[in-house]
């Protein structure tokens, strides 16, 4: 899922400080699960903002809401009436949700309350780790199911760099060396021979470098098939 974290209150405050009436919208999906922008966090953000603004002698009206998925038009549309009555929207969703709101409500300024960080999962409750970069060209089959692009700090394809020590990365003693994990796992699987071949430079053409990536499914996407 998509992992995000809350921006500092002062940064959010600076964005919405000029407005009288602001709708704060949470999202019930990934950001709820990673405890950054669900119904509860919307309440926390609103409460903090009210206090922070009151210190500046401002008393804006903050309306709290949360929808099932900010990345889907149908859910976004349910906000329409509320949006009409406000001066700005603060989205506590991932960057996708923020943009969905911006696109659906072209006349309202939309601001992000979160920093969208990565795609990943919780290692433990409250500790999330990135493990996919969405490069568009998955090579996990070669690496024992551990992605060197996401989990090696340098994204190396042919083995660990010299900075790997005690199974940890040179960037931080807390971070596992992705390559040691790959090596260990393939050793367990008795598949170390897979690593012997030199991997050619990766084809990055599927990555985001061509601008916004799109994907369609012919069997369900009407316009393409007609």
């Amino acid at each position, binding site marked *: 899922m998509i992992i995000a974290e809350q921006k500092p209150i002062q940064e959010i405050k600076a964005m919405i400080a000029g407005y009288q009436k602001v709708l704060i919208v949470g999202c019930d999906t990934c950001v709820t699960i990673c405890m950054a922008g669900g119904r509860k966090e919307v309440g926390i953000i609103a409460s903090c903002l009210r206090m922070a603004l009151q210190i500046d002698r401002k008393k804006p009206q903050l309306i709290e809401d949360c929808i099932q998925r900010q990345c889907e038009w149908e859910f976004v549309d349910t906000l329409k009436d509320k949006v009409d009555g406000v001066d700005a929207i603060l989205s506590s969703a991932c960057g996708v949700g923020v943009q969905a709101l911006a696109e659906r409500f072209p006349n309202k300024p939309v601001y992000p309350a979160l920093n969208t960080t990565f795609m990943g999962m919780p290692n433990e409750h409250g500790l999330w780790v990135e493990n996919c970069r969405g490069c568009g060209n998955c090579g996990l089959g070669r690496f024992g199911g551990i992605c060197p692009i996401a989990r090696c700090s*340098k*994204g190396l394809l042919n083995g660990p760099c010299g900075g790997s*020590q005690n199974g940890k990365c*040179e960037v931080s003693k807390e971070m596992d*060396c992705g390559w040691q994990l790959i090596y260990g796992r393939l050793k367990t699987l008795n598949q170390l021979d897979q690593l012997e071949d030199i991997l050619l*430079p990766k084809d990055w053409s599927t990555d985001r470098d061509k601008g916004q990536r799109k994907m369609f499914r012919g069997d369900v996407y009407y316009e393409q098939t007609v």
Partner: protein
Amino acid sequence: MSKPFKDVLTSGEFVITSEIGPPKGTNIDKMLHHIELLKDKVHGMNVTDNQSSVMRLSSVAVCHIIKDHGGEPILQMTCRDRNRMALQSDLLSAYVLSVRNVLCLTGDHISLGDHKGAKQVFDLDSVQLIAAAKNLEQGQDLGGNKLDGSVEFCVGATATPETDNMDSQLLKFRKKIKAGAEFFQTQAVYDMSKLKSFMEHARQSNTKILAGILVLVSAGMAKYLNANVAGVTVPQELIDEIAGAEKGKALQKGMEIAARQIKQIKDENICPGVHIMAIGKEEIVPEILEMAGV
């Protein structure tokens, strides 16, 4: 004695290389002094490439200067700051500037240096960079396009004899040879027994290994290396030895240790050469060589 480095490697002579660190800025006076001092004492001078992720004068430019002053430069290239196009382009540039030796490295992570917010590249890794250099020799770039005029390099790579994950490092070592590495300069080595055991693996693949000699300047530096530099372990005896030096004599003691180790490597024929790193104190290298009797 500016003999092509490749010839030295095959000559059977005990090979000695050292380092030149490009300045942060355009004042090259001190660097020129080092070049002058070393050019006839060593077989090759490595020029570091934004070492430790700290932005400096370009290594291609410095290699060119060394060449001009009659030295034999070894161009260090890391994968951190350039994508495959820039790397290949710089290799071509180096070649036309008469640089004939290139050491291919992965490069330190950007977060260790002085531009922590910069976007790092790592489009290629060190193995792929070696292969790219060899590919250019074939008159081809990585896009599969023909070159008008090719290159010819003596390509080197690095190894870490004191690593704690020898298995996976050896995997990469083999790949580097397979990709075309003709010589290796190792990370600093202090424990000769570890070097020997690494050499047992390395000897199986007919390649030249130059043992890395990093001159200790204080006990503090030794402890820092142990704590913070991957694949380097200074044994306690050495730390004790340098710590036991008289006040103001620590550097002297470090030089003695370096010289002793170079001598041992040569006398016991552990490696065919050494690569001496004196990080910023290149002026001491000649004295060390003298002490080592090489």
